[in-house]
């Protein structure tokens, strides 16, 4: 498993980092979950059962310090148990390996971190080129929080201590929110992956016998846990703050040597992330980008660019920078729209980016080359939360309807949210006998990938 990630390797993240941590991302089929529900009505005035700490309950402090200290404090545990954490987290609650897994002080410390207000990860963003900042801590959190709290929740479910299990989900989600407080897209993706595991745990809590109905708590979960818009803004300055010209801005028009230096550094950097640098390949890529730049600028060029006298490298580098900036600008403004509008805008943007593939092949695309994909992955938390809210609304309905699923979502008394990605209702298909039902995400216009779909096959538990 790769431990160190550079920000600029985001082009590979989907295959390497996320591919290993979110099964749903790699799946060619929609994720299908079988869930046996025990009918349970919503208690309007029952005890508070939050799934995220509320603002008045948070204490001052920096949770990042607490979370990062854990491995150093528990060296022996790290050697013996940490290597097994992923495997054990995949086991069902009743498995003996789950029961014997020790937590020492980890769970208590994660709970303490969860109830802290801030998480400042102190990356040296003002002192180093951004693409040189390593993010191994985010990777570590994925294991500690993502897998660790899954095991913790399973232990509580096995002991039928459902309130502690529910609090385990809260810790899970609160610590995911802390990871998402960092400013990079990688951290947002890791936070999303941790939160995903938290919602997996929540599904198991909901399916446990005698589980209270968590509809009220789920409806108060936000659509996202991180700082995704800030992450997009940081993504847009990766090139500028990583290349040779650093923070001082780009070379001036006509300064051929400076543009050549910048283009060389850019090309060398991107080639090094793919394979061993090859002079032949470098020449071919340079030729393609220069040709594309000249073609684009022949139609319309910046006022200070003299096509007759500008060097090839100036043409190439300016073409890249303008193209990347336009992608980032379009991504940022789309990001702020409501879900369906945002996705529609990002689908259009993805199509434009794909047109650049012949020029910018071999992973040479910029940081936000696939903003639609990042958007869907980062925002899937809200979609899953809303879908689980519908599951709990159905569980309430079954409790009021003699243990049978209602004929339609319109017959559900509790709040039934729409799918935030499409603005449409989730697809609900009850069986004729009312003892089972299927709940699915509606298709997203312009997105064909099944991995972004989710299906619940719901039954009424018989025990």
């Amino acid at each position: 498993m790769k431990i160190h990630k550079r920000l600029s390797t985001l082009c590979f993240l989907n295959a390497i980092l996320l591919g290993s941590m979110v099964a749903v991302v790699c799946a060619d089929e929609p994720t299908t979950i079988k869930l046996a529900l025990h009918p349970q009505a919503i208690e309007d005035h029952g005890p508070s059962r939050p799934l995220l700490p509320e603002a008045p309950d948070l204490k001052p402090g920096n949770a990042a310090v607490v979370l990062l200290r854990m491995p150093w404090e528990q060296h022996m545990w790290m050697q013996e148990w940490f290597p097994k954490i992923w495997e054990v987290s995949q086991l069902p609650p009743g498995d003996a390996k789950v029961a014997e897994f020790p937590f020492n002080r980890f769970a208590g410390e994660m709970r303490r971190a969860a109830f802290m207000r801030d998480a400042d990860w102190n990356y040296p963003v003002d002192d180093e080129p951004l693409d040189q900042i390593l993010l191994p801590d985010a990777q570590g959190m994925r294991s500690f929080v993502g897998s660790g709290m899954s095991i913790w929740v399973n232990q509580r479910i096995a002991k039928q201590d459902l309130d502690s299990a529910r609090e385990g989900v809260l810790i899970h989600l609160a610590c995911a929110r802390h990871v998402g407080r960092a400013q990079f897209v990688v951290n947002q993706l890791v936070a999303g992956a941790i939160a995903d595991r938290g919602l997996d745990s929540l599904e198991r809590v909901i399916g446990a016998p005698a589980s209270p109905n968590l509809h009220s708590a789920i409806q108060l979960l936000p659509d996202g846990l991180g700082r995704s818009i800030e992450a997009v803004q940081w993504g847009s300055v990766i090139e500028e703050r990583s290349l040779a010209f650093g923070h001082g801005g780009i070379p001036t028009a006509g300064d051929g040597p400076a543009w050549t230096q910048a283009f060389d550094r850019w090309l060398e950097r991107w080639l090094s992330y793919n394979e061993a640098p090859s002079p032949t390949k470098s020449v071919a890529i340079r030729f393609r980008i220069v040709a594309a730049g000249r073609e684009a600028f022949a139609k319309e060029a910046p006022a200070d660019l003299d096509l007759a006298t500008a060097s090839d490298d100036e043409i190439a580098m300016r073409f890249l920078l303008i193209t990347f900036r336009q992608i980032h600008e379009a991504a940022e403004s789309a990001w702020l729209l409501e879900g369906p509008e945002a996705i529609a805008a990002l689908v259009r943007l993805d199509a434009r980016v794909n047109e650049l593939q012949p020029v910018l092949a071999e992973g040479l695309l910029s940081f936000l080359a696939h903003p639609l994909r990042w958007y869907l992955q980062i925002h899937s938390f809200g979609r899953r939360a809303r879908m689980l809210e519908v599951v709990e609304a159905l569980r309430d309905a079954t409790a009021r309807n003699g243990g049978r699923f209602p004929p339609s979502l319109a017959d559900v008394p509790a709040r039934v949210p729409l799918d935030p990605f499409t603005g449409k209702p989730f697809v609900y298909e009850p069986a004729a006998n009312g003892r089972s039902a299927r709940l699915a995400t509606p298709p997203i216009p312009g997105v064909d990938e099944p991995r972004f779909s989710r299906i619940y096959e719901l039954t009424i538990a018989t025990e």
Partner: protein
Amino acid sequence: MFDLLGSQRRYRLAASCVAVAVLLLAISGELRGDDPVEIVLALHPARIDPFAAPPRLLPADPDLKPGNAAVVLNGLYAERLGVVLSWKENSNEVALLPVGDPRIGAFFVEPMIPDMIRSGRIRDADWNHPVHDDFANVYLGDMQTARMMVSYKLTIWIKQKLAEHDPAAAEEGIRTQLACARHIGNTPFLLTGLYAQSAGRLALDNLEYLVAEPGCPNYRWSLSVLPPFLFDAPRALEWQSRQLTLSLPTAKEGLPADHDVASWQQLTAEYFELTDDPKKPLSAAQRADLIARLAAYGRGELVRRDVVAADAAEALPPEAAVMRMLLTQFAEVGRKTRSAWSLPPEKAIKELQSIDRYVAEIASRVDGRSFFGESNLHSYLFSQSFSRRTAMLETVESLRHHAATHDGQLPVTLAELEYAARRDPVAGLPFTYVRGDRPTTASLSMPDIPGLPDDSQQRRTYKIEMVSP
């Protein structure tokens, strides 16, 4: 219209629900249909330059520096006392005068501006109100002062720069205004969140002047990346829903046992102290009568809501029945309000109308001594008006681009725009666009929000005239 509170009154946070009511009443001209706003915009065409990085109207995260802006903003008063004492006129009146008015030019604000610009470029603002230690006595005088500085003093400076035809400085002022509004919103209260939105709306007023300046760039993209809220609404609502409990010292560590009559009486006394009208305090006899009436009502409510069984309700001391009912209702309204704000606008508005009716019923039961603010719906609509106006101005900028690429002429319909017109994000409808008799004139209006009564509609119309370069 934008003078939310009219003076630098100090508010105890515990009374901020009441303050929200006052605030919303003060801005009723904007919130209710009795004062539709019509703005004449004489615009210069401005093309969107695909090669130039567009200006930002709110600093992006990578552009911000570490530090605590609250310290800088709070320090302005002490550091510039001489300037503060020199102000003889009411800045919130002067700020609303048009660009070029001599009273604006005469108002001396210059020494305050560099520190305000500096604080706008700082990432964090931690106001350190003692919310955990002494919530009932949190005063928001600092926030009120910051609001006055950011809203009015900065507007005066921006209008001075516009009068000097210095659009770059005016743009910097608007950017600072929005950034500092976000700092004001970085507090856990709904009231200060509304302050932030109010300052943000004033920044958009100033932007309306700026886009009429010859040579100013096109702000379409800059507007498209402004967030809809300059405060953390879910966090503010979480605090809002705990406000009553946190304001009652006896309830802070949990409710008394049912049989602890003395503690319930103390809690009831604390509640009446919070909600009594100082000009017309209840006499002892009136208070006893009200408690008796509320206790009977409260027992019924608690049983109806399955909070207690019928026999247990009858055994409750009167004060326990009253306070348990009030706290239950307050928590319920808080929970429903939080839920409503998370819905799409059309559904949120319906929910908030229903909550407002419930709150009004409670207020009538307690003879007006309610801890609730006047209107959840109006707080919501006021907050949302920022994003509506942003979307409307974004459409104006699309029109300016069109004019720049079509010999100064406006399109016949919005569908002709190269950069698509935004829909009104709250009404969910397109802005109403009518081109005038001449191809250089048009009007652009906010659509009515479906389901809202006429007196709650926010109406704004731009009368646009494209000026030849």
